């Protein structure tokens, strides 16, 4: 068995592309090998800033031989057919073909084509250059004089050398003979750019890795990450500090160095006045350095960790000092932004309003477009204010505070800090709000209205934050649905799935008793009503909320003005879309909720059983699912389910004969002859009444408990009573009794959707 060592040595590969490129390299080459009948034992790939490397172990020396039989024309067929056959089978004359006889005794020619497997080396010489030429870089380039010619080689950055050796462990491997873009594959690579730039002659993977290591290149990215993380923690520990871990940054810096050396730098403690998140964002985004926490203060320390690519002759003093200088300059910029944001805004300070309000004025004045079809950020803010004010009482928040928080929620988008570090949006708004003396709940809501950002993010629970967070997300969802920009497949550019899940989480986690339909209609109304003196927006809105007639809202839309002030009539399509939004969005929410619950371990058949009942009070839906799950785990629950299935199966079979709905009528008491059927009938009267009452009180446990009393009479019924009695009226009555049982059970969930 033989091994392949394949290295592509280039100018610096972007860190973010390295992992994918290594994975692609492995997949492309191994797939091509397998496709050509060459199986291997193991394959691993690696990336550094300057190389992609693939190691394949256990390849056979050549492809397996192939034998193929090709059926030809009958004996005595016309000459043209014979000639065609000979040509396609690669035979010189019919002497080389065999003659077979078919079932009917007819004779025909058969060519036996034997193909010797090609040596693996030759196969590689075909596969490797093709892989290079068709490599799926997210972005690739041309370079040098060759770039003026037709079809030049493209690579992520100029490619300089190729190592490709192949051979058994015991022998001197051979070089895979190929050339691409003027580069000949060979057995020479190069060490670290600065620490050991010389050429290295390599044989196979083992000596390659150790020669590279001696030449100050750690080939394996995982190993570079380990070194960095470990050294970072050590250095921090030695200073009594804690590393603020950052997985993304760790991956990135490991892709920027071949020989990681961690060093500690420092900045003036005065900069610690800047919010920690801004310091971290600055140092991370611009300098790719880690920040440190001081356990004594809980805040950041005025030290940072950088990962250098060289072991400098002065032990890294100059490097640490240089990085410190840059960090200082960056922080000085951040400080400048942070202070500028707290001051008056030229052109917007005349009103004498507080700084953040001036930013809001600018946001409005600039007419920053939120989405071409959904208007400006300013209009969006207005909608969120209105909606949050309206939601506030329902979630226990002060409407005025909710409105104020909504008003300021997007103002930080025009601050300098957020302009520079978009990831600090919300947080900065909160800080500036606090500084201008806003109410604490208002300030918190400005930050928290973006939450939850992802599945692990905190869910807001302060009432004002909840009101604004819901308003913001609902406005977005409803808006994009109204303009028909829904997520499709993997595409969700406006993060609508996240917004919907956010709404769900906020509702569930806070136990909010809100109906989706109301939430959607409420938000939709603000999209459809535009401030216009001619229209009494509110009354129309109320109309919409009460009678749910979207055409009222459409009536408003009809009088909507275009930019030029003309009146536009809504199109039929627009009307239908508005009317469809509620239904579609509800279904979307149901889907998100199902996915969320399933991810958290709920049984999907129980989800289906409960969702089949409809309803859009998420808290109730989830409670019902939980109660159902608990109930089915009890013996009563399990056997009631069994009884239900039996009844349902019989009904299904009989409904086929008599037609659907044939047994929907109430069973008649007079026709109940057996004791067991009378008992079931009586039990059902009480159980349904109790279950009904319990459901009204939203006590699902009690409802299910009530139904569980049906278990014994149902079992007895099936034991003693023949459903398909000879007398047709008895049969029909018994089936009606079962149908009633089915309906009773459906009060709590659609049991037909529950698995066995």
């Amino acid at each position, binding site marked *: 068995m033989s091994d392949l060592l394949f290295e592509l040595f280039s100018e610096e590969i972007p860190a973010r592309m390295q992992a994918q490129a290594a994975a692609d390299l492995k997949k492309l080459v191994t797939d091509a090998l397998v496709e050509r009948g060459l199986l291997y034992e193991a394959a691993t790939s690696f990336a550094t800033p300057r190389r992609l490397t693939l190691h394949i172990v256990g390849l056979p020396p050549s492809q397996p031989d192939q034998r193929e039989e090709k059926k030809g024309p009958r004996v005595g067929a016309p000459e043209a057919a014979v000639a065609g056959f000979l040509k396609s089978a690669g035979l010189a004359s019919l002497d080389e073909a065999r003659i077979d006889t078919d079932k009917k005794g007819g004779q025909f020619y058969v060519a036996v084509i034997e193909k010797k497997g090609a040596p693996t080396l030759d196969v590689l010489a075909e596969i490797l250059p093709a892989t290079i030429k068709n490599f799926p870089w997210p972005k690739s380039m041309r370079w040098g004089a060759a770039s003026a010619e037709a079809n030049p080689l493209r690579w992520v*950055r100029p490619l300089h050398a190729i190592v490709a050796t192949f051979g058994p462990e015991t022998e001197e491997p051979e070089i895979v003979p190929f050339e691409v873009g003027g580069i000949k594959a060979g057995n020479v690579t190069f060490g670290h750019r600065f620490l050991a730039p010389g050429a290295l002659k390599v044989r196979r993977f083992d000596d390659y890795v150790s020669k590279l290591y001696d030449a100050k290149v750690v080939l394996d990215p995982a190993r570079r990450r380990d070194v960095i993380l470990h050294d970072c923690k050590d250095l921090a520990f030695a200073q009594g500090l804690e590393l603020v871990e950052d997985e993304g940054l760790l991956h990135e810096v490991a892709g920027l160095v071949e020989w990681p050396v961690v060093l500690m730098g420092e900045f003036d403690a005065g900069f610690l006045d800047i919010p920690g998140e801004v310091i971290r964002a600055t140092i991370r985004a611009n300098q790719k350095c880690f920040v440190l926490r001081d356990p004594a203060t809980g805040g950041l320390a005025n030290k940072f960790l950088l990962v250098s690519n060289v072991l400098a002759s002065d032990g890294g003093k100059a490097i640490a000092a240089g990085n410190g200088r840059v960090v200082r300059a960056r922080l000085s910029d951040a400080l400048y932004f942070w202070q500028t944001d707290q001051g008056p805004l030229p052109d917007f300070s005349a009103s004498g309003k507080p700084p953040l309000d001036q930013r809001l004025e600018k946001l409005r004045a600039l007419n920053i477009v939120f989405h071409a079809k959904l208007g400006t950020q300013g209009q969006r803010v207005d909608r969120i204010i209105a909606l949050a004010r309206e939601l506030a009482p329902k979630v226990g928040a002060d409407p005025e505070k909710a409105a104020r928080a909504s008003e300021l929620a997007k103002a930080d988008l025009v601050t300098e800090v957020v302009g520079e570090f978009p990831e600090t949006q919300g947080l900065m708004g909160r800080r500036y709000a606090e500084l201008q003396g806003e109410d604490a709940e208002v300030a918190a809501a400005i930050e928290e209205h973006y939450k939850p950002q992802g599945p692990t993010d905190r869910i807001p629970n302060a009432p004002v934050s909840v009101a604004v967070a819901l308003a913001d997300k609902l406005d977005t969802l409803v808006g994009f649905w109204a303009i028909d920009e829904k997520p499709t497949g993997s595409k969700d550019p406006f993060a609508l799935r996240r917004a919907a899940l956010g709404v769900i989480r906020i509702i569930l986690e806070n136990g909010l008793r809100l109906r989706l339909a109301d939430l959607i209609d409420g938000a939709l109304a603000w999209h459809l009503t535009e401030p216009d003196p001619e229209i009494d927006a509110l009354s129309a809105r109320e109309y919409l909320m009460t009678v749910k007639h979207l055409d009222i809202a459409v009536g408003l839309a009809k009088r909507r003005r275009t930019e030029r002030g003309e009146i536009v009539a809504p199109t039929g399509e627009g009307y239908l879309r508005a009317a469809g939004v509620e239904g579609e969005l509800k279904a979307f929410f149901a889907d998100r909720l199902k996915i969320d619950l399933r991810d958290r371990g709920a049984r999907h058949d129980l989800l289906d059983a409960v969702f089949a009942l409809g309803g859009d009070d998420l808290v109730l839906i989830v409670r019902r699912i939980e109660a159902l799950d608990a109930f089915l785990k009890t013996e009563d629950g399990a056997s009631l389910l069994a009884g239900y299935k039996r009844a349902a199966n019989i009904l299904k079979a009989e409904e086929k004969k008599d037609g659907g709905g044939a047994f929907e009528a109430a069973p008649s008491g007079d026709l109940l002859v057996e004791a067991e059927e009378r008992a079931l009938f009586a039990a059902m009267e009480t159980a349904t009444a109790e279950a009904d009452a319990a459901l009204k009180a939203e006590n699902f446990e009690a409802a299910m408990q009530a139904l569980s009393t049906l278990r014994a009479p149902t079992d007895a019924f099936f034991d003693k009573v023949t459903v398909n009695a000879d007398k047709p009226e008895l049969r029909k009555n018994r089936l009606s009794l079962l149908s009633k049982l089915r309906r009773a059970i459906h009060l709590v969930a659609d049991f037909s959707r529950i698995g066995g």
Partner: protein
Amino acid sequence: MTQNPSALDPKKSFQGLILTLQTFWARQGAVVLQPYDMEVGAGTFHPATTLRSLGKKPWKAAYVQPSRRPKDGRYGENPNRLQHYYQFQVILKPSPDNLQDLYLQSLAAIGVDSVLHDIRFVEDDWESPTLGAWGLGWECWCDGMEVSQFTYFQQVAGVECSPVSGELTYGLERLAMYVQGVENVYDLNFNGLDGDARISYGDVFLQAEQEYSRHNFEAADVKKLFGDFERAEAECKALLAFGERDDKHLMVLPAYDQCVKASHAFNLLDARGVISVTERQSYILRVRELAKACGAAWLKTDGAGLVG
């Protein structure tokens, strides 16, 4: 006057650093040009780069370009960000195979020791939306500071580069801070002399930074600037139309100047914060249209090497 070697020493004087780079690239066969005499945001705008990077004709040039970035004004208070600074620009067509090595050699020539410093090529794909240009490359870091931009041009003025040029843009002040070991750009020694004879970068530029920051953010006349933009745009189009002669063009460079003017007016308006996000896009597009038209016209001239 006695001769003073420090005046030419790249490690002791700002001017010495510039002279050393010029000498280095002159030895590599580059034409050493002087700055373009217009307000530009980067050396890339010099026609020696934008226009000369188009077409087949080989080209090597190096020059200093004063660069104006109105938005980068900090009233003289940032240690390394200026609204007016010097770039050293090198353009090599086609890009040589050893361009990275040449760049590192040039750093060594000005005293950046790669055994003592951490030099890194960090992905930074360059794109100039206003020029309709893009390329792949890096920002070059020295101890965490971005000291140069390194780009393999793929497209300029909407035209595919054929062949590709290599572009190096050195941030001269930031490099000088390294080699001189100073914390603040204004403390750079400009002329390499000591005592009373010493002229610092601050002596030359601090007042200008303060005044221009005020100008860029507070005073620049918005109405006039909008007018400047419109006029430059109209003039550019008019000149391009004037120079059109079948398969040749006779007035690319003057037209291109107007494109540069429009671009600078836009930068000032942007610094004044009077351009909304949507408008911003449309202004960028308008400049790009001019740049593209100039690029297309350039290809019809002798300068591109296609004609004559």
